């Protein structure tokens, strides 16, 4: 049974159809990269899986349960899948530790002591054990993004959705975030990432999904996608269009 099952997902803004029937099964422990040009619908797809965008047709099942789109259903869905954003979206008025502790305390009703223990563990896991009391404004972009990862992990999600999480970072800070992702992948975490880091996609991901004009245009292993792209659109995207 797949961990996440998308069936015939349709979404449009007004007359503009952004997702034109997406079906995708994601197994537990799988690491998947969504690639494609901007506007191809990959970010929207990710945001649908976290319930940040509504969709008109189709269904999303997580852990064998269909995701409901009412407020309570969305909260259940979001406890199962965590989300990490391009702009980090840390809460600037809370320390790194408090950022991580918040959801376990409010959503899972943990005591402050328990939540702190988890927060310290998660910050350790992303290599920021010493920055528990730092405010986001005092940290580099890479550190902030790692706190955001720890914050999502603290809810013990079944899968993590990553929306271009290195795109807003200075080039020298990208690798520290990718190293964390690599560790998570090694520990068997299910990851679905929208990314432009092709090397990372090739080295770490199990499957690549190439999206084009709101549809899954090609899908396959990194070797398959990079070595033997089938469609001209993918070849053009990869810049390997033969002369």
């Amino acid at each position: 049974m797949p961990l996440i099952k998308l069936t015939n997902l349709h979404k449009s803004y007004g007359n503009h159809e952004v997702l034109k029937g997406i079906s995708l099964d994601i197994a537990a422990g799988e690491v998947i990269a969504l690639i494609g040009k901007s506007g191809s619908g990959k970010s929207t797809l990710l945001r649908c899986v976290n319930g940040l965008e509504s969709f008109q047709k189709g269904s999303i099942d997580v852990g064998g349960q269909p995701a409901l789109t009412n407020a309570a259903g969305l909260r259940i869905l979001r406890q199962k899948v965590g989300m990490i954003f391009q702009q980090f979206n840390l809460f600037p008025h809370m320390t790194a530790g408090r950022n991580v502790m918040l959801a376990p305390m409010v959503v899972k009703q943990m005591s402050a002591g328990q939540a702190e223990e988890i927060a310290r563990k998660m910050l350790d896991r992303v290599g920021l054990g010493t920055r528990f009391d730092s405010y986001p404004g005092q940290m580099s972009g890479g550190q902030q993004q790692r706190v955001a990862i720890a914050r999502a992990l603290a809810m013990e999600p079944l899968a993590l959705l990553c929306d271009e999480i290195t795109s807003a970072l200075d080039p020298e800070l990208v690798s520290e975030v990718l190293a964390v992702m690599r560790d998570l992948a090694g520990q068997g975490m299910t990851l679905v990432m929208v990314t432009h880091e092709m090397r990372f996609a090739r080295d770490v991901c199990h499957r690549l999904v190439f999206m084009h004009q709101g549809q899954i245009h090609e899908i396959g292993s990194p070797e398959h996608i990079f070595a033997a792209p089938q469609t001209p659109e993918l070849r053009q995207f990869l810049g390997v269009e033969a002369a």
Partner: protein
Amino acid sequence: MMNFSTWDIIHNLLLAARWTVALSLAAFFGGGMMGALILFLRVVPNRIAGLVARFYIEVFQGTPLLMQLFLAFFAPALFGMNVPAWVAAFAALTLWTAAFLAEIWRGCVEAIPKGQWEAASSLALPYIAQLRYIVLPQALRIAVAPTVGFLVQVVKGTALTSIIGFVELSKAGTIITNATFEPFTVYGCVALMYFALCWPISQSSRWLERRLNAAHQAH
């Protein structure tokens, strides 16, 4: 007929100014609490609550404070009650303040980036928790300066309560003018006293705003 020296004028005006201060503070705090309620109705995702709040704000911002004072003064009479001027003054000023503060604060809530709401919802926080832990604490920080600034409007607004007979600074000015026939001196002093009350508040509001902007740039 009494003889008023300039000192007598100032002394009597200062006594009356205490009521201006008291009414301003009462209306500001009353209006703040009521305003928080209106703000909640305004931002909560419920169509009817939003409409009620918008109607409230529209009515109190779209009509003269003086009319609101008259209505607060005369409406209880319909039910056979005669309210003293200070009750009507407090009630009207509170309702009026609430409308403006609710609107100021809504602007602050809307200034919080969408990503903060999204991050909070992606962590499965319920709506109320998103407001309480994420949005309101940040909105509060940017709300301080304009809220303090609005206190100046409240202090000036209390001058209108003289018209329904509440004896505060402006009313005292009129009474003393009628006794001394020195409107230039008396209203000049009244104006300076309002200025002495309001200017420091205006300045601190500006100072708070500059400090906040400076803090923003440090990030």
